């Protein structure tokens, strides 16, 4: 399995239970124009946040990130905004699966003390997160191998194009 790039970015700190309606509101979801999704990213959470996000930045959330709707527009909006990785203490299941399926790196880190503006380095392959600002390291929960393979392929579309079908032997 090919390795995912190690990413370094500035952290935007988010709270617990950030739902997909606040990530991208229902009124904006019916579109195939991903740049319009990025414009409205997290608008009902913090209307000024989208403008502060720079390519490579990292979203750092609390518990249950992405609860609610199955709308894949939520991770698509995050990716389109240039976010390199979403780190959370825990994720809601459909969001987590959707993010991996579209090739957005997500890392579950049950314990961290990242503050807004910290610089963090994420190595999804090793399951390691470094807080460069505070010289701390946190460990990530391991994802099932099939998910790691889908993410490493760049998402489910390239994964299925390359392999033709799911491989779950490593998960047994």
């Amino acid at each position: 399995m090919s390795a995912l790039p190690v990413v370094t970015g500035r952290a935007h700190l988010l709270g617990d239970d950030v739902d997909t309606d606040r990530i991208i509101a229902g009124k904006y979801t019916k579109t195939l124009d991903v740049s319009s999704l990025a414009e409205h990213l997290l608008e009902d959470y913090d209307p000024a946040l989208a403008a502060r996000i720079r390519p490579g930045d990292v979203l750092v959330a609390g518990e249950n990130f992405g609860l609610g709707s199955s709308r894949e527009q939520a991770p698509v909006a995050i990716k389109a905004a240039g976010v390199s990785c979403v780190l959370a203490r825990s994720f809601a299941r459909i969001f987590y699966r959707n993010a991996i399926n579209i090739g957005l790196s997500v890392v579950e880190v049950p314990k961290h003390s990242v503050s807004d503006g910290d610089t963090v380095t994420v190595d999804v392959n090793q399951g390691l997160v470094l807080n460069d600002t505070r010289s701390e390291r946190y460990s990530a929960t391991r994802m099932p191998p099939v998910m790691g393979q889908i993410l490493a392929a760049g998402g489910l579309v390239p994964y299925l194009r390359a392999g033709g079908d799911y491989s779950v032997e490593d998960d047994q």
Partner: protein
Amino acid sequence: MTSAEKLLSRKAGDAVRAGDIAVVPVDGAFATDTTAPMAIKAFEAMGGERVWDPARMSLVLDHATPAPNERIASLHVMIRDFARRNGAHFYDVGDGICHQLMMENGHVAPGDLFVGADSHTPTLGAVGAFAIGVGSTDLAAVMLRGRIWLKVPRTVRIELSGALRRGTYAKDVILHLVGRLGIAGASYESVEFGGSTVAGMTLASRMVLANMVAEMGAKTAFVDPEGLELPGALAGRDLPRWDEIRADDGAEYRIVHHVDVGDLGPQVAAPHLPSNLKDVRELRGVKVDMGFIGSCTNSRLEDLHVAASILRGRRLAPGVRLVVTAASRRIFNQALADGTVEVLSNAGATFITSGCGPCVGTHQGVPGDGETVISSTNRNFRGRMGNPNADTYLGSPAVVAAAAVAGELVDPGEFLPGPEGQA
């Protein structure tokens, strides 16, 4: 084994247990106008030309219907074309809400492995299916291969006993459970409902229970099939015996919760989380501007009947509007034929297209700044109904109807006909 372990073992062709990962064939799937466009794009990018089995695939226009603008209208064109080219089942504007359509048209049956590109797909667990919500790209892969990979979930068992009090319904039970277990109280898990109360519930009420497991983070729901009235569309179908799909005695649960439903008063979820639980009597006096009776949670015939029993011969409070939708065209026609639509309309209610309507904040009843909504839907996240400067409370159709008459949150028992205990 739990119901989830049994259903997935049947599909995997091998005994699987909680924590195992399995690749299983899919018996039925659908996407909506929110999820289908991205799914079609991903399907084509995967090299897909034809849906794996068009008889098992449905496309439903329900989230923004009729199209409120040219952009959405053009996405509807794309979905219609895709359905026609593939020969898949297609439900157009006004036919109804995806989960209701899957149920009443027999697209889902007991024991099925069902995948819907909508988070409330666990609703179909009411008929004994293993039904999960996914996003567009997973749905695309199902359309391509007819299979999906899944982790077998652990299970939370809910035992319901006792009789529902006057003015309380399945909605009050599930709101109570979301509040008690928490907004992530069953994350990644299956929620299994059983007990004497469930055995006496209609299919519509079972769908209410299964629907809102999504608000505990659950992957799926399963309602014990004892006492189940099957949808008419399944008549004559070869179905599994109940003991083939329901949990075994001695199944291993993460936890078992017992609830005597007779202890519950009317429940309301206050802004801005479905788990922010209150008894309606704690909220007495909260003024409302709008009521909504609709959504995949609560817009079936029994819900409209409850609303009509409260609104018959009454008028909405001055300054209050009430928006109502039936979960499907079939239900609307039943409510039309039995006089329910007339009762609600005479009271001042506005009927809108059968579909998701204002629940998803796109059109047909977006609240204004500073306004308060009481809604029979399932989510009250900030901005959910289209305006982050409005508040949404969630309750049963009875709570909504009573609030629309009173102009504020009240115990619906005050408006139900007949003496205590006869409603």
